[in-house]
């Protein structure tokens, strides 16, 4: 009798389970068959009336049915949940190719980006970064740099004078002097900044431009050190395959003096429109600090030596980005600034 009842419960439950299509229907089934007041429990309550032999047999059967039903309900429940999740994911699909939300992001000025890179390189080589006044004394801009009032080299730097003794610095070199006056060797500095020459504005000239001055003073600094340092700098800036060459030149505050060319980064030295077919690009001026300049700053030129260099920032930035007109750098058209 009891066995039959149990089998009926199993058959009914399995029948209904097949039809259950929601979590609620499953819960209903669970309560009806497995709950505390459910059908299976009700039957188990009648176990007392069974004989000693039948009791364990029926008990086992009832437990088997309970376990089987419970497992099936859980499995069905998971099946339903999976289907629901599947449906939800399908329904929630979006066009992942729509444009992303706008993020406000500005940019640094192109030549500041180049300058940042150069500063990093020099910092790595142990150079401190210095800044100095743009309105400068003739004393620092010329006199102390071995260019007395009547020096013909002054003519190559058309100067904006403010008073007889004050001017807009024509170079960042006065920072050499200002540094040496207060700091004793060893000195390794660079000084980036604005400089001024009375040139009219055109595609390659500007009354205002930027220079990076460099200075090293220590015991036993040689011309070969100058070469090695600047070569290392250029290779870090333009790549290990860059070649350099040094040409004799003249600056009143260095002796020997040189100009450094680098192999054209566009054509690799074969000759192209950028390097005007020469394969070389003039990149900076440099030289061994003139002993008179050291002596002017109270540094013993027999004991110490050094080198200095000056790099034009605009030129480097323009070549890097292929900018053909210097005026663009100072017009700050956003259509220009956004490109870098």
């Amino acid at each position, binding site marked *: 009798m009891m066995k039959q009842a149990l089998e009926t419960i199993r058959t009914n439950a399995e029948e209904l389970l097949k039809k259950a299509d929601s979590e609620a229907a499953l819960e209903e089934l669970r309560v009806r068959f497995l709950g505390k007041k459910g059908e299976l429990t009700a039957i188990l309550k009648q176990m007392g009336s069974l004989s000693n032999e039948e009791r364990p047999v029926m008990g086992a059967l009832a437990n088997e049915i309970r376990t089987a039903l419970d497992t099936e309900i859980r499995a069905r429940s998971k099946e339903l949940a999976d289907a629901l999740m599947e449906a939800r994911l399908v329904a929630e699909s979006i066009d992942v190719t729509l444009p992303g939300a706008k993020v*406000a*992001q*500005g*940019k*640094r*000025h192109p030549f*500041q980006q180049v300058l940042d890179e150069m500063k990093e390189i*020099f*910092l790595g*080589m*142990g*150079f*401190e*970064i210095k800044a100095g*006044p*743009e*309105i*400068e*004394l003739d004393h620092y801009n010329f006199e102390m740099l071995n260019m007395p*009032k009547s020096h*013909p*080299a002054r003519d190559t730097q058309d100067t*904006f*004078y*403010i*008073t007889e*003794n*004050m001017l807009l610095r024509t170079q960042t070199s006065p920072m050499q002097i200002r540094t040496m006056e207060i700091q004793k060797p*060893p000195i390794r500095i660079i000084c980036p900044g*604005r400089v*001024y020459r*009375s040139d009219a504005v055109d595609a390659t000239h500007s*009354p*205002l431009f930027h220079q990076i001055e460099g200075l090293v003073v*220590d015991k036993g600094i*040689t*011309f*070969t*050190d100058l*070469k*090695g*340092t600047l*070569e290392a700098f250029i290779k870090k800036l333009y790549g290990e395959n860059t070649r350099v060459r040094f*040409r*004799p030149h*003249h600056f*009143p505050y260095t*002796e*020997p003096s040189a100009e450094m060319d680098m192999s054209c980064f566009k054509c690799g030295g074969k000759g192209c429109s950028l390097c005007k077919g020469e394969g070389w690009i003039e990149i900076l001026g440099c030289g*061994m600090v*003139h*002993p008179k300049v050291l002596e002017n700053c109270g540094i013993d030129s027999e004991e110490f*030596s050094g080198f200095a260099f000056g790099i034009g920032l605009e030129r480097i930035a323009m070549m890097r980005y292929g900018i053909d007109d210097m005026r663009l*750098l*100072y017009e*700050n*058209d*956003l*259509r220009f*600034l956004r490109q870098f």
Partner: protein
Amino acid sequence: MKLPLGWVRDFADIVTTPHEYAERMTMSGSKVEGFECEADGIKNVVIGKILSLEKHPDSDHLWVCSVDIGEADPIVIVTGAQNLKVGDLCPAALDGSTLPGGIKIRRGKLRGVESNGMLCSLGELSLTVHDFPNAIEDGIMVLDEEWPTGTDAVHALGLDDVSVEFEITPNRPDCLSIRGLARESAATYGVEFKDHTPEAPRGEGDIQEMLKVDISAPVCSRYVAAMVTNVRVAPSPRWLRERLRLCGVRPINNIVDITNYVMLEYGHPMHAFDYAYVGGKSIQVRMATEDEKIVTLDGVERALTTDMMVIADDKVPMAVAGVMGGEFSGIYDTTKTIVFEGACFDGPSVRVTAKKLGMRTEASGRFEKGLNPANCLPAIYRALELVKELDAGDIIGGVIDVYPQPRLPREIPLRPDAINKLLGTDVSVEEMINILEPLGFEVEKKALAGLFDKEHAYTVIVPPERYDVARDCDLAEEVCRYVGYNKVPSTIMHGTATARPSERQIFHDKMIQALVGYGLYECETFSFYGKKAWDNITLPETPPLRRAVVIPTPLGEDPSIMRPTAVPSLLDVVARNYNARVEEVAVFENATEYISAENPEELPTENEKFILAMYGEGHDYLALKGIVEQLLASAGIKNAAFVRNTDGTTYHPGRTADIMLGDVKLGCIGELHPKVLANYGIKPRTCVADISFDLLFEHRGGTPEFKPLPKHPAMTRDLALVCEEEVAAADIAARIQKGAGKLLESLTLFDIYRGENLGTGKKSLAYKLVLRTAERTLTDEEADNAVKKVLKNLEEINVVLRS
């Protein structure tokens, strides 16, 4: 400096191509800018002979010529020129030829008659009558020399030499001469420098009886004079004209050409005076007197000052020494006797004079750099030699040479160890001597007086034209450039150095990165502008901002002051972008501003600023204020207040605030005044913030200190408040802060409402207060008490809970 290669070969046997020459000279220290050959622009032009001339059948001005061009058959060329006759030799551009300026000549029909080329005029070959004095300007060039027909015209006209252009640095005035460059060329190529020493030519008579020279000016170290009489002014011979032309000097006549030729060869400017105009037969080299005047060769009357040196006769100045001659100092058709001047004037003196008079001439440019007085006499001799060679006149015997203190050769020690120490090289003393001697230095194995150590075993005698060489480093350069700058090794500096950016630099980069992160683009503008900029931003007439550094000689009218405020610079940027129809602008500049000192001889103060400017959708006052607040937060600056400022003229009086940190004004922020916008032609509302970087740095926050995360829950209370429109949000916030005291963790204004139900002139502000204490969980009662205090504080300024 232009150098004809043919002229160099007078002094050194150099076989080379222009390209190779340019490369080698550049690397040995004489920088070549480029080279040109007149022949490069002329191709397939030959010497033709006119065999016959006939009137064109269909024209009254054209001629049909049969021209022998050295081929078996003559060719027909039609010309419009009227100066030809049978037998004339002239340049004929054949079919397919090229003329200067890239002009191509092709066979073609002229009124039905086929012309197989073109007969050329001087102009068509880019020549002038100065180059060929016997030719005419308005007709075909007829040669005055015999040449076989068919000869390449480039060769026949002497257009085939190459002129090399050098950039000569100011320390090498000796290289502003053919001889100087020839010496460098010889040393570069390792060949002998064949110097030419002109001889003192014999002449009739005695110059001492005809002329007297006195030097009273201290800035003239030497004055040499020679005289030539029975001057026969005529065109110079062709070889001389060609050389001048290749150097970019226009041939004039034999006398003038001789002075120019000698100037080019020796680098020493010369002058020729007409003896007839030398009053009192006396040349006086003296300083100008008070109120003295001179009319210079260019016809301009110039007032002289007492610091200017003149060449005068017994009464009036005939020339401004080393700069320019006076109007009567030239050579004329009537000139019979001339005086050649070869003098040495002090560089700085000539420089100042030329600058004061606004007259930079070829001569002054050379004197300025400091010339070698030893050159005066050879230059004069060379001129006389040429007078004789060109038969340009009869030389008068003797020269006058006033040279009070002859310049002695400079002797300096040769210290090989010091040179190698500076260069980082190991060049032997023999090698050094081998480099120095071809450059004109003499090296003697002797110690200078008083110097006896091993370091001073050798002495260098510096030639007078190389006064730039004075010490070890100068000799090191000579050695290094002839060893080869690229032959010496590259080394890594010894020793270690540690470097990092300064605290200010790190802070600076952080601020810039923050601004860029907020969407602003960095600008770079000029540091100067015209005074109109001040009017554009309606700057008040009173200092301090108008206490600007003025540039007395600006470029044109515009850039005349160093900006005391960079706001106009950024507004120019905004206006430019607005005109370029850029819809949205958000920019900043890390600008330097210049405030002049009380004492004009003291350096001005240079202040570093951040100027921010923006317009476009969403770029309003509050957006900019948000950026500024965030920037201040990045700087670690707390408790900055935005205080309404209604006084300004640049900004909208109702939309401007000063950014205050206690009593310190960090800057200001505001929407621009509509008048200012109109001045710049900017239509959209534009907001600007003007913040001192120096003050941000000074008041920057330190390293943040960690606070433990809260362990107890917070209480929140929302307050909807009503008040008069005029009440400032900052005042409400301050009172909430004060009322809630330490319990207030954060305060957010989350809604602003205006509506009829509130009544006119009223607004409602809704705040969320987050209250918490670290020690324990707050009770409702504690929170309510805090709110009560807040409301009591607010009531004092008539801010009440919205009912």
